[in-house]
């Protein structure tokens, strides 16, 4: 009979929620941020900065509609420029939200309950930003509906063997299912806000959003089943989305793109950048809203560990990209990797190695993982690194392909930057509105983590 072994203290983990909370205090604290808290000066300032950035998108898109894609730096051979770099980057950021809300739910990781609402919101906003780029990049965005299969007088249909059409299906499914999953998760919390709202108009709005939810056991039973099924469907979905995005590259014949490692390497990179973005947003929010007792050190520690793990997978991808270049015995593949490391975009490549491979190595140390400020800085560096990775993948393969006579160079113009920073503005504006108007933590799932909430002590995976 094996004896239970007392773990050494360094392996023991703290509670998911700090002690001293009850059902009522959890509801009041998280709900109170929406219902009672005054709009602070910090929020107004942050919102205004984000909203100003958003105007870059307005101006950039307007000028694009007037003049066409010629205002961007794209040319032949580099037809894919910033639009695709940013598309891949934003879509990747969304992936952490679905990982937290779906995969960690299936794996019974109860600590996810405190951060999943926020991460899912981030997913939806990031996919919104991502979806805009291919549409703008078509050059005639008002004809974007041609991407969809519908009977038309031209008698034309999309080519279903093309990864670009797969992208349309994957991204639109991803946005729809993420939004539905998010709304389903919000229903019981809307009911909480409806029942504790002091103002009539707030109660009416939240009441309509809650659809008359009355916490009935008969409802909960179906609700939990539907949530589990949505999680089960979202899990392969999230893996498929960035796989399909990587197919945009891997199915083509270009050196540096035509590799089998792309799907897993893209998915790992997506989750890596997503966790970095969750940390970049969560650390300040947790501080400003005093949520340290709900989003505890344990959450930061776990997310840092996941960032490190996926970062190592991404590092493995870089090593094997270089190795494949050498091992392929193909002069174009070899040239591509040499050009990437020493060509005109070499500074981008080495900065990306610094940001994505060297910086996360600090996360091996628990003292760094549990220091919010340093963790926040590392997460920002990783965000920049992942953006550079997308840039290097898209640009270095395109600008020098098989024939030296068709080589070219690409530099973004001010309009590229305006649209890019504009989407960052859109993303942050949505985040600010979200934390003001909706409960940023799933209240009802948090209740289940309280001591005494579960009747039978279920095995908790740490």
């Amino acid at each position, binding site marked *: 009979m094996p004896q239970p072994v007392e773990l050494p203290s360094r392996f023991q983990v703290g509670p998911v929620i700090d002690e001293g909370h*009850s*059902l*009522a205090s959890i*509801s*009041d604290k998280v709900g109170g941020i929406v219902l009672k808290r005054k709009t602070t000066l910090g929020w107004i300032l942050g919102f205004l900065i984000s909203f100003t950035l958003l105007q870059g998108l307005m101006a950039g898109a307007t000028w694009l509609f007037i003049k066409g894609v010629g205002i961007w730096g794209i040319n032949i051979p580099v037809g894919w420029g910033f639009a695709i770099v940013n598309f891949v980057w934003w879509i990747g950021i969304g992936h952490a939200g679905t990982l937290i809300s779906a995969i960690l739910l299936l794996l019974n990781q109860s600590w996810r309950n405190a951060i999943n609402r926020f991460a899912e919101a981030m997913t939806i906003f990031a996919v919104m930003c991502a979806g805009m780029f291919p549409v703008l990049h078509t050059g005639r965005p008002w004809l974007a509906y041609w991407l969809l*299969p519908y009977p038309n007088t031209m*008698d*034309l*249909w999309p080519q*279903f*063997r093309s*990864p670009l*059409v*797969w992208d349309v*299906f*994957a991204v639109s*499914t991803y946005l*729809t*299912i993420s939004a*539905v*999953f998010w709304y*389903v998760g919000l229903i*019981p919390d809307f*009911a*909480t806000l*409806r*029942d*504790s709202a002091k103002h009539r108009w707030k109660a009416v709005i939240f*009441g*309509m959003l809650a*659809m*008359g*939810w*009355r*916490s009935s*056991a*008969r*409802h*909960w*039973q*179906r*609700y*939990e*089943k*539907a949530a589990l*099924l*949505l999680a089960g*469907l*979202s899990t*392969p*979905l999230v893996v*498929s989305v960035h796989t*399909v995005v990587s*197919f945009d590259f891997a199915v083509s014949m270009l050196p540096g793109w035509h590799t089998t490692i792309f799907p897993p390497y893209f998915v790992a990179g997506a989750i890596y950048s997503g966790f970095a973005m969750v940390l970049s947003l969560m650390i300040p929010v947790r501080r400003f809203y005093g949520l340290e007792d709900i989003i505890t050190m344990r959450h930061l520690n776990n997310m840092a560990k996941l960032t490190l793990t996926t970062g190592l997978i991404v590092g493995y991808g870089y090593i094997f990209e270089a190795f494949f270049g050498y091992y392929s015995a193909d002069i174009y593949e070899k040239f591509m990797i040499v050009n990437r490391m020493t060509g005109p975009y070499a500074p981008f490549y080495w900065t990306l190695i610094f940001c994505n491979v060297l910086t996360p190595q600090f996360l091996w140390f628990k003292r760094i993982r549990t220091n919010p400020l340093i963790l926040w800085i590392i997460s920002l560096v990783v965000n920049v690194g992942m953006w550079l990775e997308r840039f290097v993948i898209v640009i270095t393969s395109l600008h020098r392909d098989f024939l030296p006579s068709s080589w070219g160079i690409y530099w973004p113009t001010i309009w590229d930057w305006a649209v890019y920073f504009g989407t960052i503005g859109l993303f942050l504006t949505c985040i600010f509105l979200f934390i003001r108007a909706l409960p940023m933590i799933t209240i*009802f799932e948090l209740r*289940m983590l309280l001591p*005494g*909430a579960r*009747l*039978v002590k279920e095995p908790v995976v740490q």
Partner: protein
Amino acid sequence: MSIQPIDEHPLYGLMAEFESPGELVEAARLTREAGFRKFDAFSPYPIHELDDAMDLHDNRVSLYTLIGGLIGCVGGFGLASWVQAVALPLNIGGRPLISAPMYIPITFECTVLVGGLTAAISMIMMNGLPSPYHPVFNVERFANASRNKFFLCIESADPHFDRDATASFLESLNPEEVAEVAR
């Protein structure tokens, strides 16, 4: 304004309030054992033990999701095949018109899309939502059902319901309070 219907049961039911999830589960079990069928429990978060105590085993959401997923699966593959083989056949070097492996991503995405939407919509519809009005909200303290209290409501539509007998039955379950639920 709608005309108030004349109803032979002006009372919707009787509601008991409990302090803890354990008391609610025990009360729900005893209520079921006493022969009541038209009753419901209310809690701020899902309690799995209630499913057994109240004999709730509705698996239709799973079934509908499976059916929805299969429809999406067949529909996605069918759409791609029909477009490439019938609506717009393109002969590219004699390659097959129905090239199944290339249609898998579309098939998969359509499976998830229809399956996921079915899961959410069937759950909402089977729960009878949206329902802006429900008699249980007439009990003032019921607002706490979404906060920190646990409730059990026996409906007057139950054949065993008797205003006085049921009230004393609920009192015997050791609740915080028993209240009448107006219709």
